[in-house]
């Protein structure tokens, strides 16, 4: 959908006014043909990215990684190690860029802030090279009263997180209570203050591409700075076709409103080959404007080491074993 007229631009602010306007708008979005969307990503998956293009893509992918640990077993020690890795992914090669952010649970935010920046606020310049993201809003299910989810958000921001990864209320979305989902996102956005808000759609639970497109627009209308595929905690996480649909949504949303929103596939992206397929998808769907860590991120943990191995292979011509790259 490409609404480019000036009148369409001003109309969108009214869409969230009532349940009826929201429903009319979301159900009026063009459908997604499942077969066609999957064929498109399969075709783009055959793009052959070699030599200089591959080197460029690997460095960009490293700069887009939200290095993530979201385990019950997370400890301050684990988080400090992750922060160190985020700042210097490849200690053997100073030309290797840092990742975009580390992503942790709210309880681990102060530890991560201290490890990344030495203080609880990210400063400009070198010391603030890496962002600090925190999942909030009763991640991953979102099944807690709104007040608790907002308190969760506020505590993460107070601890120093400058990016909040929230989950939407899938139960409300799937039962058609769009206004409720919308209002909750607006409330979390307000609770996030200056922090960037990434809205996790949990596409594995929305199942259909039509739902993914509607949820993407709903989140953007409610003020999301990023839309993100998954928590990584359900069996189906990020896929190329889901990301395609979301990239189409942010592209069309910018055409309609002038505001650019980022996209973050998360979960299940483990290899350089996968990451490059995503970058090709970004390039040929939303366009080069999104090929920047401000507008596209990978939520991943094991991806980073594969990127580093491939990066070393490209520069030295030989593969090193996993022992030559740091854990965490």
């Amino acid at each position: 959908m490409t609404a480019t007229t000036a009148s369409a631009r001003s109309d969108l602010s009214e869409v969230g006014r009532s349940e009826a306007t929201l429903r009319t708008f979301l159900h009026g979005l063009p459908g997604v043909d499942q077969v066609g969307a999957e064929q498109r990503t399969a075709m783009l998956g055959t793009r052959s990215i070699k030599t200089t293009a591959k080197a460029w893509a690997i460095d960009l992918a490293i700069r887009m990684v939200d290095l993530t640990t979201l385990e019950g077993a997370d400890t301050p020690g684990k988080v400090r190690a992750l922060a160190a890795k985020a700042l210097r992914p490849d200690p053997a090669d100073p030309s290797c860029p840092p990742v975009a952010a580390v992503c942790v649970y709210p309880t681990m935010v102060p530890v991560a802030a201290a490890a990344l920046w030495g203080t609880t606020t990210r400063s400009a310049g070198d010391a603030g090279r890496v962002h600090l993201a925190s999942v909030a809003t009763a991640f991953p299910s979102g099944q807690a009263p709104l007040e608790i989810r907002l308190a969760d958000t506020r505590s993460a921001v107070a601890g120093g997180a400058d990016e909040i990864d929230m989950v939407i209320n899938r139960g409300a979305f799937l039962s058609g209570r769009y206004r409720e989902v919308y209002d909750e996102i607006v409330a979390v956005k307000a609770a996030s203050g200056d922090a960037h808000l990434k809205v996790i759609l949990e596409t594995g639970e929305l199942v259909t591409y039509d739902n993914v497109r509607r949820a993407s627009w709903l989140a953007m209308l409610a003020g999301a700075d990023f839309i993100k595929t998954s928590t990584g905690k359900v069996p189906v996480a990020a896929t190329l076709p889901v990301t395609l649909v979301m990239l189409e949504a942010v592209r069309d949303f910018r055409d309609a409103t002038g505001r650019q929103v980022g996209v973050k596939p998360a979960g299940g992206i483990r290899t350089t080959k996968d990451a490059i397929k995503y970058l090709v998808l970004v390039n040929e769907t939303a366009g080069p404007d999104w090929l920047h860590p401000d507008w596209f991120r990978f939520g991943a943990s094991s991806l980073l080491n594969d990127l580093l191995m491939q990066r070393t292979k490209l520069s030295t011509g030989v593969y090193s074993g996993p022992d030559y790259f740091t854990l965490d």
Partner: protein
Amino acid sequence: MFEYAPAPESRAVVDLKPSYGLFVDGEFVEPADGGTIKSINPASEEVLAEVAEAGPADVDRAVRAARRAYDEVWGPMPGRDRAKYLFRIARIIQERARELAVLESLDNGKPIRESRDVDVPLVAAHFFYYAGWADKLGHAGFGPDPRPLGVAGQVIPWNFPLLMLAWKIAPALAAGNTVVLKPAETTPLSALLFAEICQQADLPPGVVNILTGAGETGRALVEHDGIDKVAFTGSTEVGRQIARSVAGTRKKLTLELGGKAANIVFDDAPVDQAVEGIVNGIFFNQGHVCCAGSRLLVQESVYDEVLASLKRRMARLRVGDPLDKNTDIGAINSAAQLDRIRTLAEIGSSEGAERWSPPCELPDRGFWFAPTVFTGVSQAHRIAREEIFGPVLSVLTFRTPAEAVEKANNTPYGLSAGIWTDKGSRILWMADRLRAGVVWANTFNKFDPTSPFGGFKESGYGREGGRQGLEAYLDV
């Protein structure tokens, strides 16, 4: 910017000889009168190889070899044994897929992505599919023991050289016929490699004969008294000549000719996928597709939206070296075809349609044409009526489903059509009324050996593919 570095497929896998003879009775032989044709790479104008030009004496020799093979070996052979040969050919095609794909792209100019992912896999699939029919002809619905026709003379075009060969040879052989096939003069090389594959498969001599040459060779083949069946894919004009020349003979005829397909986009279509389908419909294989969706019919209420998306998508098409794995649009097959496309495009402009192409750099050598869309086209324009056979799309609009059907059918052709809508009932309503051999719903240019393909009206008659495709090669 994400600049994709060149990713060329290696040519080393193809072992081209400087010159080729004719494939008759199981071996390569010199032509009787020694004429030759040069086959060039349309992307660089470099000469790839010289091939023989078969004359009437060569045609006669090949037809006699085919007749002998039919009478003595292939005709009497049980279907299950014919199937073994066809399965063997199919497997060798898969084993040599890369070689075939590279050669096809070199000789034809089509992107390696298409020859690798579409043409060659479909070629193998056709042989596998018809291999399965060879011992089951009694169950195909043509009686308990349908008989083959005898010797088939087959003439194929340059747009899908190997795939058209498979569409012709696989059902003919499965039904028990022997064949003499003439590939197009600009794209003979993959058929000659197929001849080598027949040798590798130990196919009995004379069952498949390949005669290279131009129009005169084709005419001599079609008019030869010794053949029982003519199968032709190509232009409507040549198809008419062939129909005249076989009129009053015993020869059975199937023709698969031109098209001017309508690709119809309704206002409730999945727009992003519809745009992909429009692009695939007209720019697949540089638009050298008889069933190409060369007329886009868009419902007026979504015209601006669809056109804006289409232009944005067209700007992403990668035009260039056919052997680069990231190329979307390759070279136009010949200088003559390029001339025809240019002429019709100029007529489009002079008749008042608005022409648009994305900015794209075309190589200096070779035959190239930028993907082009004409808007403001009406049914009265020549670019809406004549087959351009190139990457040129004409855009028209409609208001109601009935008007869409009327405009889609308002053409002398009737090969294919596309419908894009989320409403299932409308797809069925439209498909009932469209006078086209193939109607695609929410997709375009999809082929499968199990699905019959063929035309209405001036797009020809007879069907290729599926159970129906056997009928053309059986005495029923």
